[in-house]
């Protein structure tokens, strides 16, 4: 085609890709998995500071169970941020939907499945309401969701009639918070390994952990093989293997701790399904591509024929549904629907998304990153509580960590030359 006929010009040589080899590849992996490394470091740091308390099986289990609602919000939030918007109302929506769950299930005595379904529909309706104003009417999301924050906090009070609702049915609490798969395939008595602990360990949990590791290895190997087949550049084999080994160790560590406690929390299964589904959605679906395109350059997306308004609309509907789910999970955990439920949750969710690598201007961000970001915030909260740090200082430290995380991300992106 053109290549045959045109007269080629001498042009400056295209710079080679930066150093290959193990170190170069390690450096690249480092900047990409910066948040993951930070998470592990912070966990170990608190492990040392708390004398190992934070790493006790019950605590590790709690880390996941007690932060689940933030992680669910973070998944929705990172998608909103990638699309170039923000949602400040999620905390209030969590409160509102939790209140409605209480109204349906406790006050009105509806069957749990019906109550949950109705609450999720309410979440979708909230998202549709906000999505309409942002996508079709053109009001900036900051304002729409700020208004939503106020509106739905008020709605929470209205729904509760100024009272609390408690307790929720045991089944409800079990499914969405306190349930575990325990003892399904028996236990194995583990000796007391230094730094890891011992005791009866649920075999099923260990199997799930092993399955997760296998799944990770298989999928990473396949994608690396595919990249090689298409002549894309891959890091050195050494760095690849090292990354896999470290990930496997971390996964099995968590699995072991869970196994020593009560096994696999139901909520972890829910989270795993959500993470896998939403990662696939963002990375591989047309919808996900459209979200990244809109966030990266709105006008270019429009002129490429991408239907910006419906995509934006559904991003907010999705956030509404996930907020409702978080509302259910949270009320199940604290067994209480309260006018102040959800207060400030949006900040944790936003912090999780940004610590996880989302860009303020949109177009960049990953679900996996948001999860790691959310866990990091969770570890911070948990660790500081165990250490008995004053709540005021906790706030200060959390804020500074958020700043440091994003500053580090900006710095490492500038150094690697991509911006």
């Amino acid at each position, binding site marked *: 085609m053109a*290549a045959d006929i045109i*007269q080629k010009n001498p042009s400056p040589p295209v710079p080679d890709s930066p150093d290959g080899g193990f170190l170069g590849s390690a450096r690249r992996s480092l900047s990409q998995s910066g948040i993951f490394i930070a998470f592990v470091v912070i966990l170990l740091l608190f492990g040392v500071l708390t004398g190992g308390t934070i790493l006790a099986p019950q605590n590790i289990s709690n880390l996941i169970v007690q932060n689940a609602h933030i992680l669910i919000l973070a998944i929705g939030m990172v998608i909103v941020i990638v699309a170039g918007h923000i949602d400040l109302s999620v905390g209030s929506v969590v409160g509102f939907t939790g209140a409605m769950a209480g109204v349906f299930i406790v006050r009105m005595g509806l069957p749990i499945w019906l109550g949950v379904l109705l609450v999720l529909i309410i979440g979708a309706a909230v998202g549709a309401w906000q999505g309409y104003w942002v996508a079709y009417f053109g009001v900036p999301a900051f304002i729409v969701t700020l208004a939503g924050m106020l509106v739905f906090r008020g709605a929470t009070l209205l729904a509760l009639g100024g009272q609390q609702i408690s307790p929720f049915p045991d089944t409800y609490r079990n499914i969405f918070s306190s349930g575990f798969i325990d003892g399904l395939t028996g236990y194995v008595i583990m000796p007391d390994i230094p730094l890891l602990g011992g005791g009866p360990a649920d075999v099923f949990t260990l199997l799930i952990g092993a399955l997760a590791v296998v799944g990770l290895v298989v999928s990473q190997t396949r994608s690396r093989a595919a990249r090689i087949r*298409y002549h*894309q550049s891959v890091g050195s084999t050494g760095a690849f293997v090292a990354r896999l080994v470290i990930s496997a160790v971390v996964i099995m560590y968590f699995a072991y701790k869970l196994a020593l406690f009560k096994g696999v929390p139901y909520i972890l299964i829910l989270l795993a399904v959500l993470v896998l589904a939403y990662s696939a959605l963002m990375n591989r679906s047309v919808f996900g591509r459209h979200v*990244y395109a809109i966030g*990266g350059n709105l006008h270019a997306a429009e*002129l*490429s024929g*991408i239907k910006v308004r419906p995509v934006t609309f559904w991003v907010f509907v999705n956030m509404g549904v996930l907020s409702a789910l978080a509302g259910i999970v949270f009320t199940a955990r604290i067994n209480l629907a309260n006018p102040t439920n959800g207060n400030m949750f949006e900040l944790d969710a936003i912090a999780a998304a940004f610590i996880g690598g989302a860009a303020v201007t949109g177009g960049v961000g990953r679900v996996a990153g948001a999860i790691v970001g959310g866990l990091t915030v969770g570890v911070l909260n948990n660790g500081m509580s165990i250490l008995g740090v004053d709540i005021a200082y906790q706030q200060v430290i959390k804020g500074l960590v958020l700043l440091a995380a994003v500053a580090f991300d900006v710095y490492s992106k500038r150094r690697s030359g991509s911006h």
Partner: protein
Amino acid sequence: MADHILQMRGITKEFPGVKALQDVSLEVVRHEVHAICGENGAGKSTLMKVLSGVYPHGSYSGEIVFDGEVCRFPDIRASEQRGIVIIHQELALSPYLSIAENIFLGNERSRRGLIDWNRTNADAAALLERVGLTENPTARVMDLGVGKQQLVEIAKALSKDVKLLILDEPTAALNDVDSDHLLGLLRGLRQEGITCIMISHKLNEIRAIADTTTIIRDGRSIETLPMTDEVTEDRIIKGMVGRDLDNRYPEHTPTIGAELLRIEDWTVHHPQHRDRIVVDRANLTVRRGEIVGLAGLMGAGRTELAMSVFGRAYGAGISGQLYKQGRPIRLRTVRDAIDAGLAYATEDRKLYGLNLIQDIKRNISAAALDKLARAGWVDDGKEFEVANRYRREMNIKAPSVLSVVGKLSGGNQQKVVLSKWIYADPDVLILDEPTRGIDVGAKYEIYTIINELADRGKGVLVISSELPELIGICDRIYTLSAGHITGEVARADASQELLMQYMTRDQRTLTGLPAEAIEDPAHSVLVADGPVVPRSGRSAGTDD
């Protein structure tokens, strides 16, 4: 012995992995207009950034001697204090601030921290007079056309008592009228004793105004030519490119077929000022295998016409008819337009055409993701293959299709844009300023691509401000003036003077086509085989 106001000696500037400048020398005589020429990526902007202090002393090696003194600028302020002012290609004006505020930005007329508005506006008015602007100094800069904004930048430079004015592609975004005005202004400045360095791709302007031209290629200074009559544009191109370019425009014999797109009675109103007519009853046709040009001054309505046709992406109160292969079509959204077989490559590729933070692969697939997706899931491998194919065929210079588009040169970015639209498999491509800001070699590549598109049976509508380009590649050229189609000229009859004549017509003076246009079959390069017979669906005889 010439009196050199500036001597740059042995300048070498490196970035990780790339030697942008190698042992470059530049000598500028006092009071002259010195042009710097070179392809995109040759190092012209880098050299000016070294001179102006954007790249501070220490980040490069070599010596800068200005006005007899060795200079080591730590930042831009230092160079400005010595009287060196640079006006970048992307104007550094704050759109919502007034002209006066912009002129004195960073250099405020103030006393003890409080701005003296009277002095600001009065001084601004005086400067505006020097550059030939009659605007009120309190007018908002964003309300001015880009030609006038350029003059505001020069006023800003004058306010800093400039001795050496550096202009980076000053007329790139200007139409001919504004360009001439600017060049006249530069001549005036030369008289006043200001030395000018002008980086430009516009060889005709360089010949018109420059006293000396330095050619930079691949980070080295190649030669410095005094602009005598022997130094023709071709001579400069040869220096820039390093070899003879026999033709700036590739040879092309058109094979023109049936009518592909017809725009009839097309009227568009301004989206904010609904009573302003931006396009007025325009009529335009494009045939298979034909390259049609659309010429017009800035503000004539070319982009507005194109964008409003392209699924009403611009404008309000749009009326008129569109026909695709003889059948009426309604394009209500951009997606409708793409599905109907239209493509539109925007005028500003960075602003509207590309997702700069994404890689080449994702940009190429952006308009036609459906071709790569099944049930909503994208086939990554196929996408990669498609992108690689275009990278090879269009000669996009990048390490891989995973390279981020924002880091490519202008020419390569434009090729990504073209790849995106070609992949969407349109019948008609509307290309808005497809070679703006691109070096000579890459331009030739793009002309070749356009010719091939025509050979494949597509219709191409090229909007351009460069009349020689339109005459060089188009089979037929429409002229647009203040929203009216004022002329339709065949290639054989086209000349810059004739086109400019039509482009400056105030309104349609004739209901039909101008007499000089294409009625004479001996001069016509239109329909090859008699009257056009519209067919439903694709006509036979094309490859796709």
